[in-house]
């Protein structure tokens, strides 16, 4: 399955599962990154180590580890 870290810049997707453990998971949930939420990759750093994700009008910075712990599917899947 696809993870956020597999997306390209400007690509949109729907969150299907969050593998991150607590307390990271709780933090992601309170930022609005929940199952069913639409996310869009705004940017990532050159080495793809840090990601800038837009979800529900909120921009959230994530590390590669967290970005690859969020499973997503395409918008129309």
């Amino acid at each position, binding site marked *: 399955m696809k993870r956020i870290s597999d997306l390209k810049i400007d690509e949109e997707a729907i969150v299907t599962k*969050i593998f*991150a453990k*607590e*307390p*990271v*998971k*709780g*933090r*992601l*949930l*309170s*930022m*609005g990154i*929940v*199952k*069913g*939420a639409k996310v869009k990759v*705004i*940017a*990532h*750093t*050159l*080495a793809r*180590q*840090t990601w*800038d994700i837009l979800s*529900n*009008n*909120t*921009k*959230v*910075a*994530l*590390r590669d*580890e*967290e970005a690859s712990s969020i499973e997503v599917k395409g918008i129309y899947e």
Partner: protein
Amino acid sequence: MNDDIKVAIVGQPNVGKSSIINALSNAKLHVGNFSGVTVEKKEVFLKRDIYDIKMTDLPGIYALNAYTPEEQVAKDFLLNEDYDIVLNVVDANTLSRNLIFTLQLLDMHKKTILVINMVDEIEKKGGFIDKSKIEGLLGIPVILTSAKENRGVEEIISQIIKLHKTPLAKNKIFYNEKIEERIERLAKILRKSPHFKSNDVSRFMAIRLLDRDEDVYKMIHDLPIFIEAHNALEKMYKDLELEFDEESTTDILANERAAISYNLQMETIDMEEEDESLSEKLDNFLIHPILGLPIFLFFMWTLFQLTFVLGNYPMNVIDAIFSETSSFLADFLPKGIFNSVLTEGVLPAVGAIVMFLPNILILFLGLNLLEQTGYMSRASYLMDGFLKRFGLQGKAFVPLVSGFGCTVPAYMAARTLKNPKDRIITMLVLGFMSCGARLPIYVLLVSAFFANHNPGNMLFFIYIGGAFLGLIVAKILRTVLFRGEPEPFVMEMPPYRFPSFKALAMDLWIKTKMFLKKAGTFIAIAAMAIWFLSSYPVNDKMVQNYHTKIEQTTNIGKKQNLENGLKAKLLEDSYLGSVGKFIQPVFAPLGFDWRLSIAVVTGLSAKEVVVSTLGTLYAMSGADETSKGLVSKMRQNVDFKAAVALIIIIMIYSPCLAAMGTFYAEVPQWAWRTFYTIYPNVVAWLLAFGVYKVLALMGY
């Protein structure tokens, strides 16, 4: 008889809580600490009619599942303190995300007001918020505000009073019936305990338990009903997780709240999808994969240039005012001890400090601007990959940069790091980020010994060099003391905003006040003590000898030399001279004389004191009457190698007492405290010694 109303102001970070507080008129602001911890506590006192309203501004909190120590403070307050009304501030732009937290607050079923801030931004985009619909759906009063345009702020106060007079309305928020059934069953068990008699409390506690809230779990742990509640809870976890096909009941509740909030937003806000906001356009450049970092470094470089170049003008004016006042008073006041203490001890010392107020204010203004505009979190984003290499994380960037302003708030800013290991490493290397108080020492030494170089560049180099050294030490600490990955990195990047000039001005005013207070009290007393220690005891016989010799000479030049010799001799024999000579062996390998040694040691009380001590010590020894100012006196008395060694010592050794006290308050373990107190001084000495030797070999 006056009526007291206690209000708790809560909200997620970046929703503009402080700008609302700033916009309240006729309010008295009190800044202190939450008891037992060093998290800043802002309290606002207001009087309207017969009501005394006390509002406590809680630290920004994303959810009741506290994540950072600051959030824990807010949560503890909400759970345990006594207050009448919850004032929940949310950002209209990110309403659905904010409402997730509002729903957690509504679980408490206390009198709550929802303040939807920044409505102007929605309206500007042609949007509309249906206030009465939200009120109907949530069952609480809603106020639309724009702190920036000063809209709706006064309504908050009248609504607080109105709500205070009306009885608590019925709860309108209910979850899926499968969950509600469990809540009711669990609440029933809890009600058997006298602690949770009321329906509201037992319901709230039941929800928190289903949300796997460890703090609440601990609360029931020692109660007689614990076994019953625990067994029921275990079964509910299992059943619900099966019924909803989720890993944890926390997720089930999170999904529930997210769905409710999303629907609420959909039903109540009419907003066009934007094409590309200004924030996104800016981010195209500012966090550009290639351009981002150079732009960030350029901002930092500009800040340091401004600090030095712009700060120079008011600095000269202040310097002139103090020296003029000093010499005027020396002639005007009757000769004697008071005159000497004031014009030779206190005034020059305080002047030497106040002179640097402009520099410090410019630096703080810059850091505040970065924070308020939202750029600081971009900087963290840009720096994370880099900092990760040194065993730190992007969020550590904020305390590290604040460290350039003042180490004390920087230690406090480190609280946003949740993982204790990340926090302790960040705090241990924070001292390497040269604080504003060290700036005067660098400025003095740079002007004295690097006169041919661009002082702005030299300062930049000192600051960056210190920071880089700190990173290397962080890496060493991480590999030697802690193994394991740094804490995960999840951080909101708020939209760019125009800074509030009122807030900026307010903050600078507080900084100025505290700085002047420090200069007027602590530093003045320290200067007085140093003046006393350096003026006594007086060897009358020796003075007599010198005076006879001076009278006997007719040559003016020789007279001058003798007078200076007397001054130097007096200082050398003073109490301070003895202390300096006693500790000098420690600093001798670095080429320090007893005066530099004393200055370094007095710098432990406050870094500003280093300059004032040098001022007192060198001004009095006056090697040459024609040379004015401390700069040239330093140049004549200290050699280049020792000056460089001194810069290195100042860069690395222990910060001031206030900072050390803050560290002790933040870190309870004695092992860390001891390590923190010793290691920077050892590193500083070794490095200074190494550089001194290398410079000697290079022929300086």
